[in-house]
């Protein structure tokens, strides 16, 4: 890290992050030997399984004792430990600019910065994708401090953009994420849940470990308004005139139902889903990921 004081990564956070270690349970697909288990069989001390010899296999891996007993060639395979790729997708649409004390984007940027530091500090690789309706910027996986600085600077320069479409962004990220690893999507997820999980399907199929971090503002959770209000959509500019008091209860119920749908779909696809509000400290997200 350079001596520059970053907006979203403060010294006290760095100190606090030293007690964390990013170690997702999903198997990684790295090219460097590292701390994370991999599906690629390699030379390690961790026995994996036996399998029959096929021409082309390394004959040094043949287990001769088995041959002596069964007169067949079997290979002993070992799990290869490798480094992990963590891909962060940060929603930078206009809706993420909503917030009374702190915007959702700023809150997400704090979490993203801390996560980047944590991953790189563990000698893993991390990539960052800023998106709204499109992929606005993409930082390929890297594990260097310079790479971290680049991402931190990008977060500082990041501003709420246009409409949001998590599904479209994910679709465009499919060719970008070549190696298996973790995907952490940070968004308010006020989008169509079915489209989101449809877009996540290729990643899940490829074995990615997906984490969905929903960030909401208390103001939009509880609709803290009174009287007749003209609600103007931050992305589309759509206007709706309604009495906040009259629709509060139904709005909260509908939002809860939306989140319940997200949570249900996530559980069905074995996707980790966590929802926080900006009045909570973002380290609670780390605690959640640690529990996972």
């Amino acid at each position, binding site marked *: 890290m350079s001596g520059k004081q970053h907006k979203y990564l403060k010294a006290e956070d760095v100190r606090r992050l030293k007690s964390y270690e990013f170690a997702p349970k999903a198997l990684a697909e790295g090219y460097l030997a590292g701390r994370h288990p991999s599906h690629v069989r390699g030379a390690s001390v961790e026995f994996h399984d036996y399998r029959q010899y096929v021409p082309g296999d390394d004959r040094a891996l043949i287990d001769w004792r088995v041959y002596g007993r069964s007169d067949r060639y079997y290979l002993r395979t070992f799990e290869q430990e490798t480094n992990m790729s963590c891909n962060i997708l940060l929603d930078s649409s206009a*809706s993420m600019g*909503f917030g009374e004390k702190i915007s959702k984007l700023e809150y997400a940027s704090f979490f993203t910065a801390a996560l980047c530091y944590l991953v790189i500090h563990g000698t893993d690789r991390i990539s960052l994708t800023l998106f709204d309706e499109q992929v606005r910027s993409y930082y390929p996986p890297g594990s260097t401090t310079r790479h971290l600085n680049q991402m931190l600077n990008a977060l500082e320069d990041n501003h709420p953009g246009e409409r949001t479409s998590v599904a479209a962004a994910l679709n465009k990220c499919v060719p970008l994420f070549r190696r298996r690893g973790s995907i952490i999507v940070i968004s*308010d997820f*006020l989008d*169509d*849940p*079915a489209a989101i*999980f*449809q877009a996540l*399907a290729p990643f899940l199929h490829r074995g990615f470990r997906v984490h969905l971090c929903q960030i909401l*503002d208390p103001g*939009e959770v509880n609709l803290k*308004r009174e*009287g*007749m*209000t*003209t*609600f*103007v*959509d*931050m*992305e*589309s500019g*759509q*206007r*709706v*005139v*309604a009495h906040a008091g*009259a*629709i509060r*209860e*139904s*709005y909260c*119920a*509908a*939002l809860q*139902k*939306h989140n319940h*749908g*997200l949570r*249900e*779909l996530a559980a*069905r696809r074995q996707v980790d889903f966590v929802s926080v509000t900006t009045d909570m400290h973002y380290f609670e997200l780390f605690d959640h990921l640690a529990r996972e």
Partner: protein
Amino acid sequence: MSIGFESSLPLLMAGVVLLPLLLHLFARSRPPRYQFTAVTLLARLVRESIRARRPRDLLVLALRTLLIAALAALIFQPIIFLDRRLNDATRRNVVVIVDCSASMAYAEGGQTRFSAACADAVDFLGGLKGSDTANVIWLDSNPDAVFPGMGVNYSWLSNELRKGKVTSEGAAIEVAFAMAAAMLEGQEGYREICVVSDFQASVWEFFKPPEFEGINVVLSPVGEGHGANVALGELRCVPAAPLCGEEAEVEVDLHNYSATAVQRLVFVSCGAQRQSRRIALQPWSSALCRVPLSWSTPGLYQVDVEIEEDMFNGDDRGSMALEVRTQQRVALCGKESVSGKIWERLLHALPWIEVQSVTVEEACSGGFDTILAAGWDGAEAALLQERLQRSGALLLAPGSRVTGNALAALTGSDSSSVSGVLQAQTLSGFIGRRLLQDDEPLFAVFQRGTHGDPCAGRVRQTLHIPEALLAGGGVLLRHDNDEPALWRAGGRTQLYLWNIVLDPEFSTVAQYPEFVILSGEILKRCRATDLPEAVEQRASGDLLSWRVPSGISASKVRLLDGAGRELKTMIGGERELTATEAAKPGCYRWVAGEEVLRYSVVPFPAGESDLRQMRPDKLKIEAVTVSGRQARNLREGVSIWPWFIAASALFLLLELLALAPLPLIKKKTGSRNHGG
């Protein structure tokens, strides 16, 4: 129907008040804008809820509009006029006839019909303005008006109505209407006679309304329908003037004017004598109660009759007065005839008879109990007929020259087929008679056989009396040649026809003692039923008066009511004493010292006991039937602003109910299929 406003000034003030209100209502404030994220979600919620909210919003809008309208109308104090003509009349002249007859004392629903009528009458007078005139006529047996003519002091009239009292009198309806019409005659403008009454059927069904020109009649019935009542009717003594030691019967008519059967205990008292009878009365029926009384000394007696009191107690007691005599006074006419002499000998033989030989004219004018016309030839038939109609009693023994017309005049028969002198038939031999009715009380004395045969004696001459002359009565004895021997008129007419020849040349009847017994029985029954001279009957509401006979100092004569209270009297010309107050039902005594000189009996008006009402529209009179309140509303209009207060409160309540939070309509389809 039209609508007016009590107050017009608030109309301008209302405009001032309403202007900012309307500005407030119609100046739509722009809601503050709020940048938000989940607007799509909100739009969907609003879209889903608008189906439920739009009707409610329209309802709230309608309720608020009605609320504002009701409040605005409240300020103007609107009045609804059902008939504008009455209100537009330039000058109104109203005569209110208030029924204060006895039946109005009946209490229904906590108040008497009379008090309800007075309240109604006050309403009729309500709303009269400066140039209007009014008067009130009390409808009783002698209707009188509060003012001599039409007046403008309405408050005085209203005050008189509040102080009015019901009387125990009947109702002279025609007199009251004539009085009202006379008052309204010559008055300019709208003229109206308002009648507030219970429209008692027994009284009003005989009312023949006079023809009015230009006078509107408004009938206002009070009362709630048929009032149940048990009443004493007529009181009689049979005989009317009993003799000392004779057992007389006091007859009491009882009437049940109700739809239920009742029992009443009838108390009859006269001096020390007091008796009671329990009488059962079927619904809407009458009964006759007979109570035997007897007196040992002659004189004037007061008999009081009571029944148990009911809701209408004015007719639950009554009194009568009678004179007990020592002898029955018989006037003998035709003494000169042969049969007259025999009758005279007979009458003198009876100790309880005081006989006087008089002319028919004298007999009819004097106070005789019985007139015996012996050998009557048809003279003075009109006088005798008139005496019979005045409750006289006549034992008629026609002679051989009597005409059919004269006899028909007394028997009340049709004389067209019978004219000329009735023929006396002389027979070759004697014939007897026979009883036609064995159980006839007249012959009861002969039933034991100790008094002989009522048909004793024979005759050989009979007067031929055509049956057509006897249609109104019954033959008691008949000759063997089928000619009637003894006939009695039907009903209450005390007329006996003696067709038994007494001339010794043609008859042996007078030779038998049975003739004395039979004649005595007939005379005992054939007695006048009119009041004795010392007893008079007056109508309720009359001023009692008596011309004091000479020999009695008028100043010493006092008038006492049934309770012994002395009533004020004044001495008029020719020694006539007159009470200053109208008489109420009861028995009044004219006394000098301790001696009772005369009784004045005032019975309860007979027609007032039947409390059944008739519908005013059944009267043959062109009239409008409304209550006083309705008439007042017709004139003054009905203030409907209190209804607007109620409507405002109702609208406000409904608005609060309509604004209560409604649950959102939730889609049963649930969430979309999220790719599962």
